[in-house]
């Protein structure tokens, strides 16, 4: 049983296992231990019976925090489960982490938004069958007073260059997420390697990073969905938007069953097929209208790769 095995695996080496101690002890204590063990088995058996019993093997979906935080998956996943009978285990992490989970076969299917990084994994053969799902956009948010004077600029990279030149405070995700990857590529385009006390790395999710930026009167790069969710809490204004490199494109990819025999290939494929299906695309199209008055994502399945999507 897992609990006992694991306990054994992690037990400090010098501690004698209870079985050995028991052998050296009289019968009573041995019996106590045995009874205890029996109780534990019964409990574990009860526990094992309680979780949701899936008819089909669970599908592990690794995805970005932005899709989870926006609430989109709360609509898509139950729909998929109802249609196919699969159970989905959604793990929301940074895009970099999600892609690695897929490439290592720890996840069956990945929904991510870092085109350059994705292509690298696909080229390595770690992920297969990359398909376009949807897009929205990134924007530069900052204090309404706009200390760097970048409001209304059309090129994000130029705006960043000015932020760096004026050493206006900027909060970076710093967490290998898709947003962080995009931010770094924008700095690269700007020809600036951001360093100094004005450049802050939060190492946290988008929501937390927006909060920090607001508290510190700083600029930050954010996806629109999270920005809209936090707009009323954080007094940050949109300063630059609409530039082509700010396009935020989501793709779905599957793990490679040939490399990892334990991957749930059929389940991963079923989920990938589902998110690009007309039903799921219709859900994506309408998502966010009720809460924000504008859709958060634009469905893209079957369309050609957009510009700036890498």
């Amino acid at each position, binding site marked *: 049983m*897992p*609990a006992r*095995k*694991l*306990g054994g*695996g*992690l037990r*400090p080496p*010098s*501690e*004698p296992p*209870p079985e050995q*101690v028991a052998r*050296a*002890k*009289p019968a*009573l*204590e041995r019996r*106590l*231990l045995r009874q*205890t063990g029996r*109780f*534990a088995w019964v*409990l*574990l058996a009860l*526990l*094992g019976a*309680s*979780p*949701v019993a899936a008819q089909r*093997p*669970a599908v*592990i979906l690794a995805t970005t*925090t932005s899709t*989870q*935080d926006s*609430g989109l998956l*709360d609509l898509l*996943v139950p729909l998929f489960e109802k249609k196919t009978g699969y*159970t*989905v*285990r*959604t*793990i*929301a992490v940074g895009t970099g982490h999600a892609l690695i989970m897929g490439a*290592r*076969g*720890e996840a069956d299917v990945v929904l991510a938004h870092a085109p350059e990084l994705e292509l690298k994994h696909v080229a390595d053969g770690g992920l297969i069958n990359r398909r376009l799902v949807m897009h929205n956009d990134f924007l530069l948010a900052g204090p309404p007073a706009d200390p760097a004077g970048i409001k209304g600029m059309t090129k994000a990279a130029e705006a960043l260059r000015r932020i760096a030149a004026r050493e206006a405070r900027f909060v970076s995700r710093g967490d290998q997420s898709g947003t962080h990857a995009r931010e770094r590529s924008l700095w690269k385009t700007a020809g600036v390697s951001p360093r100094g006390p004005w450049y802050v790395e939060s190492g946290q*999710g*988008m*929501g*937390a990073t927006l909060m920090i930026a607001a508290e510190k009167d700083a600029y930050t790069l954010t996806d629109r969905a*999270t920005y809209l*969710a*936090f707009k009323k*809490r954080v007094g940050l204004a949109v300063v630059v938007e609409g530039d082509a490199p700010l396009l935020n494109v989501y793709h779905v990819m599957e793990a490679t069953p040939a490399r*990892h025999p*334990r*991957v749930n290939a059929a389940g991963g494929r079923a989920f990938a097929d589902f998110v690009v299906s007309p039903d799921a695309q219709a859900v994506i199209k309408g998502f966010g209208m009720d809460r924000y008055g504008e859709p958060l994502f634009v469905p893209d399945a079957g369309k050609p790769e957009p510009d700036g999507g890498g």
Partner: protein
Amino acid sequence: MELIWEGIKHAFGLLLSGDAEVFRITLLSLQVSGTATVISLLVGVPLGTLIALSRFPGRGLVVSLINTGMGLPPVVVGLFVSIFLWRSGPLGLLDLLYTPTAIVVAQFIIAVPIVTGLTLAAVQQIPPQFRLQILALGASRVQLLWVLLREARLPMLAAVMAGFGAVISEVGASMMVGGNIRGQTRVLTTATVLETGKGNFDLAIALSLLLLLITFLVNWALTWIQQPRRPG
């Protein structure tokens, strides 16, 4: 301040309206942390008693290790349990990662040194003369053990409270091995992190208050058992 007030109102609203999702999350938290605490008691109490009553070479080291284990950081436990349960890990075949069972395993590992260490201390604080006296009165070993455990039951309830308190409130391990999956492994602490991440602060505060309320009720019940009551 207004936010906290809104959170409190929201929390009572959720409690009174019997929100199904919040109810499920709360129930799972209790189920998972309760199971982990019970298993850690079944292992930790006998183990602690055994170590308290026996002398063997390296005992000092074992006790130090247990005491160190009482401060095991949940994220460290979460990381190691994850590595063991990965598909590519040694226990990958069990397919346990991202299930409630995985959280129980991690929380058991967090709680068992606490229960063992506090039991050890509880049994050890009984003066050795007391043991001799009981034996001199002609008690069998079973009777001796029974008397000792009875003597130590009050500090041992403290062990239960400390163990349960540690696991119901931890977030690092639950997040890593459970994955915070809606309807499957979302517990009160991970749900609070998620709602904070989403910017739903009132809901996050409501969940925090629920967590505090549950911890309070459990400890209140245990304290009620533990503390002597005035007769009549």
